[in-house]
């Protein structure tokens, strides 16, 4: 393994994309993700790649659609308001069965909101990043190392199933530095891209990248086929981390930045003799329901900790289905919860005095 370096999350993620073969980046400045674009603008020309600052988020995601149609690894990055603008293009990418990498370095919303870290785009990322029946493969890193490691994973899964992939980061992970090591250069699996519109060279039938199907039955069949792939993704690509869950009576479910805070709180609770644990969803879609299910019987209660008003809790409740109480603690608007606040919630649930 290479030497550990200190890097900002945004820059580490950008470097990871370059290292796994992304040579086409299209973006637009927005805080707190701009370092991704700045890093790409510095590095990509030297790698013979293309950095293009688009006229808008809308244009940028459609440039990604064009480049990925050609069969190359392309990406764009933005923060919450910019992701809303990209939603049109993301829907077309999903509807055209194209892989692509989209980064959301979340900030507070709605509207222009704020620029401090948030997780309030969970619903958007996992339920409706654009119109229509479709899903993205959504990964939630919680460390800078994961910002690096999840990039090749996002590309590989996206290409394998021909679905767009999102890394749902936030302003904290984007801006902070941690020691990180880049994997030794390795050839990542090259997916079949026989569908690419890169010129048929008179050697094959023409390819069409398209999301328009005027006949309802034809569109329905296509969507059903896509949902078979989604079912396979749900079966094979769920990822979650369990921390001190085996004997836990109170299990926190938290992803990304809030999972870090929650882990500290769990350790403090354990020191006080409270049997707390943490499930950290790594894939937000597919949601790791198998991991949650494993613990429904033995634990007494779930506590969702999020940097929003309660979004992922819906998915937790769907798995738990009323068998155990599921409560919520969140801060929003760009406020990062403190371990002390989460610990206070755990104590309250455990019936201990604060």
């Amino acid at each position, binding site marked *: 393994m290479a030497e550990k370096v200190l890097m900002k999350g945004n820059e580490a993620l950008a470097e990871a994309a370059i290292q796994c073969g992304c040579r*086409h980046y*299209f973006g637009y400045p927005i805080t707190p993700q701009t370092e991704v674009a700045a890093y790409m603008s510095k590095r990509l020309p030297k790698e013979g790649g*293309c950095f*293009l600052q*688009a*006229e*808008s988020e*809308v*244009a*940028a995601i*459609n*440039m*990604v*659609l*064009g*480049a*990925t*149609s*050609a*069969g*190359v690894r*392309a990406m764009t990055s933005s923060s919450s308001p910019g992701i809303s603008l990209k939603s*049109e*293009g993301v829907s*077309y990418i999903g509807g*055209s069965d194209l892989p692509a990498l989209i980064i959301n370095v979340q900030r507070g919303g709605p509207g222009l909101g704020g620029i401090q870290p948030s997780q309030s785009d969970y619903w958007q990322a996992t339920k409706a990043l654009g119109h229509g029946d479709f899903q993205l493969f959504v990964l939630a890193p919680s460390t800078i190392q994961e910002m690096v490691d999840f990039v090749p994973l996002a590309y590989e899964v996206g290409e394998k199933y021909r679905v767009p992939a999102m890394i749902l980061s936030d302003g904290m992970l984007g801006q902070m530095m941690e020691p990180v090591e880049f994997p030794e250069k390795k050839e990542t699996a090259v997916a079949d891209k026989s569908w690419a*519109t*890169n*010129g*048929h*060279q*008179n*050697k094959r039938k*023409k*390819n*069409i*990248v*398209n*999301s*328009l199907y005027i006949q309802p039955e034809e569109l329905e069949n296509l969507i059903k086929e896509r949902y078979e792939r989604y079912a396979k993704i749900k079966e094979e690509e769920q990822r979650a981390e369990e921390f001190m869950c085996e004997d836990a009576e109170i299990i926190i479910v938290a992803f990304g930045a809030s999972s870090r805070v929650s882990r500290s709180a769990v350790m403090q609770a354990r020191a006080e003799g409270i049997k707390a644990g943490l499930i950290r969803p790594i894939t937000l879609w597919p949601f790791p329901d198998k991991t949650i299910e494993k613990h429904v019987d033995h634990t007494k209660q779930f506590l969702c900790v999020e940097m929003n008003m309660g979004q992922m809790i819906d998915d937790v409740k769907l798995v738990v289905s009323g068998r155990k109480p599921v409560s919520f603690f969140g801060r929003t608007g760009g406020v990062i919860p403190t371990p002390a606040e989460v610990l206070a919630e755990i104590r309250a649930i455990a019936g201990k005095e604060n």
Partner: protein
Amino acid sequence: MAVVFEKPKALSDVPFHYCPGCTHGIVHRLVAEVIDELGIEGQTVGVASVGCSVFSYNYFNCDMVQAAHGRAPAVATGLKRALPENVIFTYQGDGDLAAIGMAETVHAATRGENITVIFINNAIYGMTGGQMAPTSLPGQVTQTSPYGRDVKTAGYPVRVCELLSTLTGTALAQRVTVDTVAHVKEAKKAIKKGFENQINKKGYSIIEVVSTCPTNWGLSPQEAITWLRDNMLPYYPLGVYKDIDAEGGDK
């Protein structure tokens, strides 16, 4: 027996869905003939836009991508940056190019994006059933300007070639039409130049084709041609608005 007329190879054997008297068919054929003559079908990728010509992905035999409404220049940019040695063209209508996609259009042009744009201006939204377009003429009656386009509230039609000719990145901006044999020949020459410009890496080329929409204009095909000559051409004069080969163009 000598073959004197045949379907261009770059056009597929699928009947067009276009209405009688619509000029899309002619322009499709011209684009296909140019692709044949330049021998570039195998390396060409076309971008279909939203509008009546959305199904052009079924008609051209080269690889095709269908773009969101207005985003064809952005999609073409992504394709071209990934495939710099291929030939990338967009085929867009007036609503797509000059309303919802104006930002993408202007910025692709000003970047000198090395693509070829075929722009069909028929002064109306065809596919959605005849609403006012950014190029609908003053006083023109459409479904959404039932009393005629009132410039006091709806503003004035956009002259795209004139606008784009002010941008340094534009290599060619030429307006043509296909109402006569002579004009059809001129249109083909312009389209061919647009593709050649790309092959010679000269930058953004746009060929605006002043076109008809008999169905939504409420006219017969013959009346539509007359209406085009009497109303469209005075507002949208034919000619070369910018040609970097002939510094300044002739307009």
